[in-house]
């Protein structure tokens, strides 16, 4: 049975089998689960459909989350983009809107798909549905993109972390952004090595980012960090597709993320005891929310 523990092994497996990263994931999943590939693809399709529904619901919903500290920004962003005002170009602008829509839905207890967590659920759908909108990438390719993303995510999750509580936001939004960057590259015809390079470049850009949610909620600053994650994913993918390599190999970047996460104090790992959570405004929000109901 094929076991892949590093990005180096992943790249070698792609070369040896003459398959994409997504195809390797699909093959491994079939081997491990005993399900046939078509059944696995159908399960992944179901997830893509749920992601699309979250985007579609979120993009027209201007209501606030129960906390009152998020909501309504996806509508604003979408209006702005549709007026042709955005500076970032349509790929990034659309991804920003879709990502906001998903993360705001998440805060309202709407249905989303954890990719890899709920806190980072906006990034992958943001970039995938932006690719679909801008260059017509078909849904069946987006489904394969989810296999690419999960393969990259599995290596990261097993060698480092994917949750803010464990390794800070670098582990959560960082991992999701890195997965998204590699996925864009593969969907745009880049080689597995280029996809892995984009993963490394994206992760390096978010290294050290702390997890400091106001009042412990997955809203401030999480939602906007998902949005920014999509633009980092596109920038990293563009660099890699241009032939630019990460000077530090991806496996070493992941190891660095792990070490940085371990060195991060507990106050900056989803305890709401540091960073933005402990600003004057952050503390006021916490007091207001915790006094209201209890």
């Amino acid at each position, binding site marked *: 049975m094929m076991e892949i*523990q590093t990005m180096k092994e992943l790249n070698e497996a792609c070369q040896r089998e003459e398959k994409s990263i997504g195809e390797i*994931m*699909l093959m491994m*999943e079939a081997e*491990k*689960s005993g399900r046939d590939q078509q059944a*696995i693809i159908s*399960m*992944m399709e*179901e*997830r893509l459909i*749920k992601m699309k529904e979250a985007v579609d619901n979120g993009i027209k919903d201007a209501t606030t*989350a*129960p*906390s009152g500290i998020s909501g309504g920004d996806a509508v604003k962003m979408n209006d702005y983009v549709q007026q042709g005002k955005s500076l970032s170009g349509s790929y990034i602008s659309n991804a920003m809107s879709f990502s906001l829509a998903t993360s705001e*839905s*998440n*805060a*309202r*207890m*709407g*249905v*989303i*798909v*954890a*990719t*890899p*967590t*709920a*806190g980072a*659920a906006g990034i*992958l759908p943001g970039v995938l549905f932006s690719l679909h909108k801008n260059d017509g990438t078909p849904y069946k390719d987006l489904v394969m993109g*989810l*296999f690419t*993303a*999960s*393969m990259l*995510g*599995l290596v990261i*999750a*097993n060698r480092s972390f*994917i*949750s803010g*509580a*464990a390794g800070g936001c670098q582990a959560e939004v960082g991992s999701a952004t890195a*997965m998204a960057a590699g996925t864009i590259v593969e969907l745009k015809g880049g080689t597995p090595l280029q996809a892995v390079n984009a993963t490394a470049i994206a992760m390096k850009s978010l290294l050290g980012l702390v997890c400091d949610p106001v*009042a*412990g*909620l*997955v*809203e401030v600053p999480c939602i906007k960090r998902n949005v920014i994650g999509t633009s980092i994913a596109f920038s990293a993918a563009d660099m890699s597709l241009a032939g630019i390599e990460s000077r530090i190999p991806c496996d070493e970047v992941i190891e660095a993320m792990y070490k940085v996460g371990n060195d991060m104090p507990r106050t900056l790992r989803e*305890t*709401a005891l540091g960073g933005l959570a402990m600003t004057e405004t952050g503390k006021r929000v916490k007091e207001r*929310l*915790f006094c209201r*109901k*209890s």
Partner: protein
Amino acid sequence: MEFQSCFDIIGPIMVGPSSSHTAGVVSIGKFIHELLGDYPKEVKIVFYDSFAETYQGHGTDKALLGGLLGMDTDDSRIKNSLEWAKENGMQYEIEFESCCEYFDHPNTTIVTAKRGDCVVKVGGASLGGGLSKIFMIDDDMVAIRLSAGDDFSALASSYHPRKKVMDKAI
């Protein structure tokens, strides 16, 4: 390697806002629902540590009650499960403790649930990314891994809730 499947990374399909404080907790409730074979009529919930600190914002209480009522992680009724519980005549109380003496994890709960003559006391921890673990059933320490797609009724079928013994516990 803790993460095995592509669906450990892409998934679960869930109601927000948190894979650890919401989705993982629905699974713990759903497992208890399967243990009893139906939803409990009376429930005592203890939330520990991080669950006790942040349950309101994450809807951890709604998630647990939703699971106890038989809902899955992606059931949009979870948002209104407090009302659903009332409608079904489910009585519940929630207590808060700083740390759990049975299991060392910040996201831990112990639930005592009663239906008719059956009472179960179950300890669960939500490990992250929607993955959970049942660590205690009645007085036995166990290790049952719960992932949102699993067949909880099969996982619960080897444990039989005790009858009438724990009336005082509730």
